[in-house]
């Protein structure tokens, strides 16, 4: 059957109508992320974090020996390739001191605007391993980043993930169970037109909800946005397409909402926990880090965070964009092949 834009637009309109007339559903889509952000802004409004964070590049033995008795210091070992990223984190007050022993002479950096950095410096210089005059001091500067600023890209991406997975995966399975798909199958509407309409409808919904959440969160708690809005829009659109195509995989054949719910939970919970939405994964177990690196939500959160917090441009997030685009193409191809109306 030939492709028909009229049929696609008709089913797209009907799906959007279903969404915007479901007041409770879209109100929850808008409110939940804003409430989470307000909650975090409130919880972390005081200076209550007790840990000092020391990042060390190279020489694990030195790292192990340094400040071993200071259990209030979290030590993070980094590879030399992570230096630039570590300096950015130092600027954001995510590290208190960065030590690099792979260069000659060895060097440490602190943030000149960080009191905790100066405390860490004093602690470190009192240790014989460092206090031998070899270490060069360097400074970076940057304002402290609130947790709410750091978590904002993650919350936006997580909200998008739930919307894309459930709004496509669960909804299409419900259509199949209650006979809507069978009724549509009896018309000239093709599977391609139907699935395309579902993806497009979800994109419209995600754009609307994410824009509203950004405006609401900015008005209520404010947040840091150092990059271009266009780059962020590109990152979110690519991420939403990737997550929607993941939702389509669930939608291809399942016949009951209960099974779909189980599968969607199985997908969404690991991503919610391991994709760096709430906390950085760099101190996590290597296996957890490897799993995290393979999750689409991680690519989206990382890219959005770099645009929003570091001011990254398209070229700097091209890797994540490429990964999400290729995954989208792969999942769409598999979905189109597996899809059954009934």
């Amino acid at each position, binding site marked *: *059957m030939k492709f028909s834009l*009229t*049929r696609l*637009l*008709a*089913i797209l*309109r*009907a*799906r959007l*109508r*279903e969404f915007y*007339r*479901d007041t409770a559903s879209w109100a929850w889509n808008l409110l939940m992320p804003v409430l989470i952000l307000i909650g975090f802004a409130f919880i972390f409004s005081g200076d209550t974090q007790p840990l000092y964070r020391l990042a060390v590049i190279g020489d694990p033995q030195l790292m192990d020996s340094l400040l071993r008795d200071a259990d209030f210091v979290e030590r993070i070992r980094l590879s030399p390739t992570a230096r630039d990223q570590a300096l950015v984190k130092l600027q954001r007050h995510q590290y208190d001191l960065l030590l690099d022993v792979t260069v000659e002479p060895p060097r440490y950096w602190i943030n000149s605007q960080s009191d905790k950095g100066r405390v860490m410096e004093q602690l470190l210089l009192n240790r014989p391993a460092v206090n031998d005059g070899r270490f060069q001091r360097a400074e970076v500067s940057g304002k402290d980043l609130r947790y709410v600023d750091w978590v904002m890209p993650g919350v936006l991406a997580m909200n998008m993930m739930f919307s894309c997975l459930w709004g496509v995966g669960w909804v299409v399975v419900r*259509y199949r169970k*209650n*006979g*809507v798909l*069978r*009724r549509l*199958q*009896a*018309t*000239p*509407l093709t599977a391609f037109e139907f699935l395309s309409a579902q993806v497009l409808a979800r994109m419209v919904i995600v754009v609307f909800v994410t824009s509203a959440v950004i405006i609401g969160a900015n008005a209520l708690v404010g947040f840091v946005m150092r990059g271009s809005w266009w780059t962020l829009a590109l990152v979110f659109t690519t991420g939403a397409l990737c997550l929607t195509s993941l939702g389509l995989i669930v939608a291809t054949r399942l016949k009951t909402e209960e099974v779909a719910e189980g599968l969607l939970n199985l997908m969404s919970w690991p991503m919610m926990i391991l994709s760096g939405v709430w906390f950085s994964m760099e101190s996590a177990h290597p296996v957890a880090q490897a799993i995290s690196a393979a999750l689409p939500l991680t690519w989206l959160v990382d890219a959005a965070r770099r645009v929003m917090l570091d001011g990254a441009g398209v070229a700097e997030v091209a890797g994540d964009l490429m990964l999400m685009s290729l995954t989208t193409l792969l999942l769409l191809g598999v979905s189109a092949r597996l899809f059954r*109306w*009934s």
Partner: protein
Amino acid sequence: MTVLLEAIDLIKDYPGLRAVDGIRFAVEAGSCYGLLGPNGAGKTTTMEMLEGLTPLDGGEIRYRGRPVDTGFRHEIGIQFQETALLERQTVMEALELFAAFYERRADVGALIRRCRLEEFLDRDTRKLSGGQRQRLLLAIALVNDPALVFLDEPTTGLDPQSRRNFWSLIEDIKHEGKTVLLTTHYMEEAYRLCDRIAIVDRGRIIIEGEPDALLAEHFAATVIRLPLSAIETGRSLPPEIQRVDGRYELFTDDVPAAIARLESLGASLSDCQITAPTLEDLFLKLTGHALRQ
């Protein structure tokens, strides 16, 4: 008359069950053809194979003398036994949605009037009564002005009044010259609407033809029914008086003679019923079990 649709030796297998076992019939253009049978007989599976929704395990379907192709879906209208529509849309929006799927469209205004949808056009489709919902589903089935309309148990669950109203709608469709393929387990419905019927049981057609011709072929013109209490227990009865389904039945072309015969046997006629045989009687005779079992 030309044959519009042909089912040729259709077969459908499910694990451990042959649901459709060599069904073969032809539907003439402009006629109403009925598939009758109890629940689970294979009517709906046959219908879905003809509609192109369930793949065939054997046999062939021909439309206008040719194997069905992709254009077939534009020429048919379907009303399912059970179906759901997209949620949170009005009756008018549901009609417009389905109309947009087809290149050829019926006059929606005329369709609304014919199916009597005017009073609830702006109502959410989830808030319709059973009769209103069936009328909407019929209107959706007709939205592309189809040549062939499939109606699968269209009046199941409706009250008698709504059922009769719905029959009038189907008669209107027939009068327009459309071809109707109907499944039902209501014999009265089949008798009133269908030009030809096929009685299906356990996946096979057990008899096929025009309703009146089938009844005339298998029964005398009248059936007299008596309760068991009408005849003294233990009395020897002639073979033409049969005990069926908890009562006595006597088929006859000569009612006065049959009454005289019953009186000679000492039967009490105070509760006797004298009616014409029905398709239900035919089904019972051919299969040994009632349609609704």
